[in-house]
């Protein structure tokens, strides 16, 4: 159910220093998110696709990942052209689609896909623990990183607990329907999950104390910057700067 599908691979992107990937991903996403020039957005999408091709990930898996988000965007396409004010472009029955609406929806589609593809190519291609350690070396707040890694560690455990509880319900003939019995059962399921999680947390904390936990967390990972990383960083910085220039020149 919860697995890192993209983090194992042998491509150039998989071998990049994770800190470089984070340092590239964040400005890229921010620049794309605030751009409005179509030239810049198409260029950004092209960059993301290029990065994705470099990762040599299975196109089918990436496509399925994007399906959900693009479903939401499709929903926006059904609403935005008909609710935005502007110059009329086309009509479907009584509804009038405006040019401004179509342009806005197109921008959203380009931005969202460009950022998500870059996120898959850069951030999903490393194991979550590696991401946590890289963030720690980039001096992200300590407590958040520990919370992040701890939470990730226990998602799989709690997920198994959840499946055990759901199977127990099914064995007792539970069928989900739209009635109070269903909602009460789900509420008890959530409650039970919380109670078991809290008890587990107590045991985990006491186990940590038994093993000499003194309130400080340590990370032992070491990353090394290679020449390929520096070249990549330089090229991506130039590319992001190029996007900024495209956007600025479109406004001016």
């Amino acid at each position, binding site marked *: 159910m919860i697995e890192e599908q993209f983090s194992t691979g042998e491509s150039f992107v998989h071998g990049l220093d994770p800190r470089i990937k984070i340092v590239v991903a964040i400005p890229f996403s921010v620049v794309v998110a605030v751009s409005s020039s179509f030239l810049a957005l198409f260029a950004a999408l092209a960059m993301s696709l290029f990065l994705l091709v470099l990762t040599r990930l299975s196109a089918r898996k990436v496509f399925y990942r994007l399906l959900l988000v693009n479903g939401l965007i499709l929903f*926006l396409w059904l609403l935005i052209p008909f609710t935005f004010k502007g110059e009329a472009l086309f009509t479907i029955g009584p509804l009038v689609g405006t040019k401004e609406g179509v342009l806005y929806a197109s921008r959203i589609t*380009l931005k969202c896909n460009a*950022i998500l593809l870059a996120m*898959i190519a850069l951030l999903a291609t490393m194991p979550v623990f590696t991401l946590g350690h890289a963030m720690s070396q980039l001096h992200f707040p300590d407590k958040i990183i520990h*919370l992040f890694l701890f939470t990730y560690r226990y998602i799989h455990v709690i997920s198994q607990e959840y499946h055990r509880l759901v199977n127990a319900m099914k064995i007792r003939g539970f069928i989900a329907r739209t009635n109070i019995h269903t909602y009460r059962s*789900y509420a008890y399921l959530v409650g039970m999950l*919380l109670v078991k999680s809290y008890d587990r*947390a107590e045991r985990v904390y006491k186990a*940590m104390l038994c093993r000499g936990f003194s309130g400080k967390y340590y990370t032992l990972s070491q990353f090394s910057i290679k020449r390929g990383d520096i070249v990549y960083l330089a090229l991506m910085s130039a590319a992001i700067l190029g996007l900024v220039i495209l956007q600025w020149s479109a406004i001016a």
Partner: protein
Amino acid sequence: MHISEGVLSAPVLITGAALAAVGISVGLKKMDYEKIPHVAVLSSAFFVASLIHVPIGPSNAHLIINGINGLLLGWLCFPSILVALALQALLFQYGGITVLGINTVIMALPALICYYLFGGLVNRKRGLLSLASAFGCGFLAVFFSGILVALCLVFTEKSFISVAKLIVLAHLPVMIIEGIITLFCVAFLARVKPELLGGLS
């Protein structure tokens, strides 16, 4: 109620990130290193629980349960929800990184408000007031989240007003379901582990 990448304007994104930063830093101050295992395991329970789909008529909705999140964690709900959203973005590409701040505010601020509104009331001996507070907590948490989504959309682009209204209306069944589920869940916790309802902070 996640807003995906690319929908909101820069001012809204920046405001969201700033508000989230404030909430998270208050939450982090109240969270000692010793509390991290508890908050983390509860966060992962909320993460798993938010993947549960509940039938509503012909379709289904996934649980949000930010009401219970607020009740159990108080201010700690800010870091907890931030981490859950980050993991959802990384593992499922649901949400995103530029919208992490604003999505955190959308989920956690209502949770915090409901914590302050209902935290004391649900602890009373099981009576009508306790049950009604629990329902109110679940209902209003989703309602305020919807209002925040609507505000974000409208501040991005005035023409979004109809989309915003539609989203709030579309979530009315979800609000009712969440209220019901919060009601039963709180009743369950009050019987099985009342110390959880006292809040971790």
